[in-house]
């Protein structure tokens, strides 16, 4: 049986796993952006908090993914459901690039522009939402793009704790020494990663403020 036949025969299963994968990655990215962007803003605004925040995100990044899932398993509410557990672990990985790029984007805003905004009587909040965030949006999106591609890859590990996704095929294929099964997980995952990269890079370009 060749690969094409295999894919067409198992199309619905592969689609199912792909959707699970997309859900895991999507939920992770929403959470990571919701946490990472505010943290990045804090890093840019409060230099004394930047070391502890970036340091912690860095440490999370260095823990091997399988081990991280293992560490989180005994945590009461998290360990109850596999997808909860996975999304938490993935979010921890996704944070660093988002925090770093948000901070870089905001610190990179031309001081003259910020000074003008203050001098015009914009409040701190108005400066953030009308000036700083719009001007750093493409840098932030670049961080989101890196984090998304990273997460799509790491999310295959989720199958190890039974959270589903494309990793299912890969783990099964490894256990059964079946290349086709492995590819049934790996190829859609690669396509997802490339697609996300492509779409986000377009968004990044569109949002980049003209200079």
């Amino acid at each position, binding site marked *: 049986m060749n690969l094409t036949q295999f894919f067409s025969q198992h199309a619905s299963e592969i689609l199912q796993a792909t959707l699970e994968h997309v859900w895991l990655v999507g939920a992770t990215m929403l959470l990571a952006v919701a946490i990472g962007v505010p943290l990045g803003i804090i890093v840019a605004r409060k230099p004394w908090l930047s070391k502890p925040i970036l340091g912690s995100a860095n440490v999370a990044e260095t823990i091997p993914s399988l081990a991280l899932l293992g560490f989180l398993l005994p945590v009461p509410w998290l360990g109850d459901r596999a997808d909860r557990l996975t999304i938490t672990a993935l979010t921890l990985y996704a944070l660093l690039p988002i925090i770093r790029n948000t901070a870089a984007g905001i610190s990179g805003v031309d001081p003259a522009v910020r000074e003008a905004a203050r001098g015009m*009587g914009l409040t701190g909040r108005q400066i953030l939402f009308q000036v700083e965030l719009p*001007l750093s949006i493409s840098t932030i999106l670049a961080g989101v793009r890196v984090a998304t591609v990273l997460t799509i890859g790491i999310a295959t590990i989720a199958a190890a704790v039974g959270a589903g996704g494309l990793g299912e095929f890969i783990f099964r294929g490894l256990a059964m020494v079946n290349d086709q099964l492995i590819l049934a997980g790996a190829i859609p995952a690669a396509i997802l990663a490339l697609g996300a990269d492509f779409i986000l890079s377009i968004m990044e370009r569109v949002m980049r403020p003209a200079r």
Partner: protein
Amino acid sequence: MSDAANSEASGEIVIEFRGAGYHLPDGQALLSNISFTARRGETLVLLGRSGAGKTTALRLINRLADPSEGEVLIEGRKTVEWDPIALRRHIGYVIQETGLFPHYTVEKNVSLVPRLAGWPELRVRTRAQELLALVGLDPGIFLKRYPHELSGGQRQRVGVARALAADPPILLMDEPFGALDPLTRAEIRAEFQALQKRLRKTIVVVTHDTSEALLLGTRIALLEAGDLKGLYSPREFLHSNEPAAAAYAAQLHTLEEFERER
């Protein structure tokens, strides 16, 4: 400080420095014990070299910094008693590099403050057109452009238009014509003088250019290393015997002599 210089303007006092100074956290004084007043409708020029404390003095006026000693009063009220946001909306601010928002069109740049102040949409739009016309830019051409599509001189005009947007009674300008080539600068300067004749704002201009100070100022405050060396009318400044002022005047005389000898 001479009496003639003080009596020249007759409006009420709008800006008053009372022994005001500003120190960095490490104790270095950027400005110390400055006292002067600016009356309604006058153009006060803060003249001095880089690092003389001119910009710091401006920042004390719109509360981008609070004085570490003495006080600054705007319309009779100490700046520290003003709500900083309300104070800044009361004062137009034009900075050196214009600080236009690169992600906003000229129209959005110019109308941001009126919009934040809650003006009705129609009035905001009319105002934007009015302002561009006021600074000599065709609204039909320029409203939809982005700052990077403008020349330096055009950007500077938009900067002035933006500062005037909500019709503030006070205008602060930090080296507003500094980044322009000499011809454009002369042109915009002349337009600015005509504009000031019509608007009668209280204006504080920072510059290091002597001829600019003489042309624009109704009075000149000479700053050196954070100290106020004197307040002069342009005429007094030119003929002053005080060494600090004479140095600037001498530089101008040199130019004149050069021209005569050629």
